[in-house]
């Protein structure tokens, strides 16, 4: 597996220095911010009337999480459709019916069911409000304990998902048309821009890991690579239609990892399963001992894929948001002189991370599938 050249950027050293510096900066700020967060949450629940201090943790987490509305600018939001399912009944309404409420204070009644929204999750509303006017029962950690209907809402992430699918279809179908039109000639336009990437996936990801069987898995590898890459890039756009954190959402990365797992499991050959259930060339007790370990190994691989993509992209978003938020934490315009260049620098790194994470997810998928289809001699 020769992919070291990908990481051999000339400015690698620079990145290390900057990252260490920003990590140092953030760790000190982060502790302070965390202290602020806990302090502020406690405060907000004890005395909601008091003007809330800016809460960097809450702000960043709110921005990387999914949402039922799409922030445009200022106080303008696009309300997205809410689709709920419970006991054979489907409830549909627009999120704007909740108003700007996100603390379970506004109840929406549909077909005899009452719903509230808290922290962008929809719950069945309690009969009566608690002391803060919230129609939910809170546990000790201030989390709602009410039941939830199955939520199939078109959220911000779902919208971005559809948008990215449409963009990818437009891009790649037009590229395919271009290839058909210019048969046997050199690629032109969009195709010439994407062909090196397609060749990169084929020659540096698929071929080294899958050998001569690579052609069968090319569609999956290419789709997953471009899906992650496009959505990583789309997530870096700070305003509409970007701004969603799709590839940093655990549900999305989970589905992608499950696809890789299924491909591995269904394409595994005799040798692959033999190495899992009856390892050759070891004594019988060890064979038995190895079975659960190997089975866990089958599952940890996709779980690692899932967590890696989720954590990298979410961390990038939080990093950029935190740097911007420093201005508000210190409540001083002068901080922007430092935090904006830093945020831009991290943003530039994120552009790289967007590609590298797509690459890593794809190459590891190829590696896992390759291990399952490998022929032993």
């Amino acid at each position, binding site marked *: 597996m020769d992919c070291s050249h990908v990481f051999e950027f000339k400015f690698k050293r620079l990145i290390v220095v900057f990252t260490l510096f920003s990590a140092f900066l953030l760790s000190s700020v982060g502790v302070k911010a965390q202290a602020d967060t806990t302090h502020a949450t406690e405060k907000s629940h004890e005395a909601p009337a008091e003007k809330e201090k800016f809460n960097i943790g809450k702000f960043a*987490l709110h921005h*990387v*999480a*999914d949402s039922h509305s799409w922030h445009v600018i200022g106080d303008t939001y696009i309300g997205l459709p809410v*689709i709920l399912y419970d006991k054979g009944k489907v409830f549909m309404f627009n999120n704007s019916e909740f108003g700007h409420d996100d603390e379970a204070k506004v109840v929406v009644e549909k077909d005899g069911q009452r719903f509230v929204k808290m*922290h962008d*999750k929809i719950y069945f509303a309690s009969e009566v409000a608690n002391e803060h006017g919230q129609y939910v029962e809170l546990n000790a950690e201030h989390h709602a304990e009410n039941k939830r209907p*199955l*939520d*199939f*809402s078109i*959220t911000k*992430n*779902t919208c971005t*998902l*559809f948008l990215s*699918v449409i963009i*990818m*279809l437009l891009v*790649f*179908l037009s*590229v*395919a048309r271009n*290839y*058909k039109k210019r*048969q*046997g*000639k*050199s690629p032109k336009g969009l*195709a010439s821009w994407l*062909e090196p990437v*397609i*060749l990169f996936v*084929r020659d540096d990801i698929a071929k080294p890991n899958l050998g001569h069987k690579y*052609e069968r898995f*090319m*569609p*999956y590898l*290419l*789709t997953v690579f471009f*899906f992650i890459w496009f959505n990583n890039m789309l997530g870096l756009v700070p305003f509409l239609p970007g701004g969603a954190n799709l590839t940093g*959402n*655990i*549900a*999305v990365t*989970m*589905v*992608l990892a499950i*696809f890789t797992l299924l491909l591995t499991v269904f394409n595994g050959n005799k040798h692959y399963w033999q190495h899992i259930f009856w390892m050759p060339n070891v004594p019988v007790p060890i064979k038995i001992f190895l079975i659960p370990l190997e089975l866990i190994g089958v599952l940890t691989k996709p779980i690692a894929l899932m967590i890696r993509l989720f954590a990298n992209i*979410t961390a990038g978003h939080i990093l950029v948001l935190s740097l911007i938020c420093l201005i508000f934490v210190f409540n001083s315009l002068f901080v922007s002189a430092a935090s904006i260049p830093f945020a831009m620098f991290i943003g530039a790194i994120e552009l790289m991370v967007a590609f590298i994470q797509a690459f890593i997810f794809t190459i590891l998928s190829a590696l896992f599938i390759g291990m399952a289809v490998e022929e032993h001699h």
Partner: protein
Amino acid sequence: MDLLIPEVGLVVFQTIAFLLLLLILAKFAWKPVLGAIKEREQSIDDALNKAELAKQEMARLTSQNEELMKQARAERDQILKEAKTLKDSIVNEAKTQAQSEGAKLIEKARIEIENQKKAALAELKGQVSTLSLDIAERVLRNQLDDKAKQQDLVNSLLKDVELN
């Protein structure tokens, strides 16, 4: 941690959307694109191979041409040499022939001249005899005008006869 719990709605939508994307792209994008790339690579390989072959053929032809040129040059030299020898021999032959012809002609001329000379001499002899007879006749006629002289002559003639 809310972030770590997958939402069922997004899982469902992601599965459907990604599957659709995968199927559509696999059929209508990746297949033709990868096919076209492969085909192009094949044709480039073919073209390069052909170019290599053509180069070899070219080199072969060049060396062949050189060989041919060398041969042709040698042949030309040979021919020139032969032509020169031939020319020399022809010239020599012509010279000898001319010489012998000339000698023959000279010989012929000489014989002719000899013949002519002989004829001329014969004719001259005849004429001299005629003339001498004429002269003798005239001398005799002059001398025989008188009888004495005639007698003398007859005497002298008779003397000669007697001597014989």
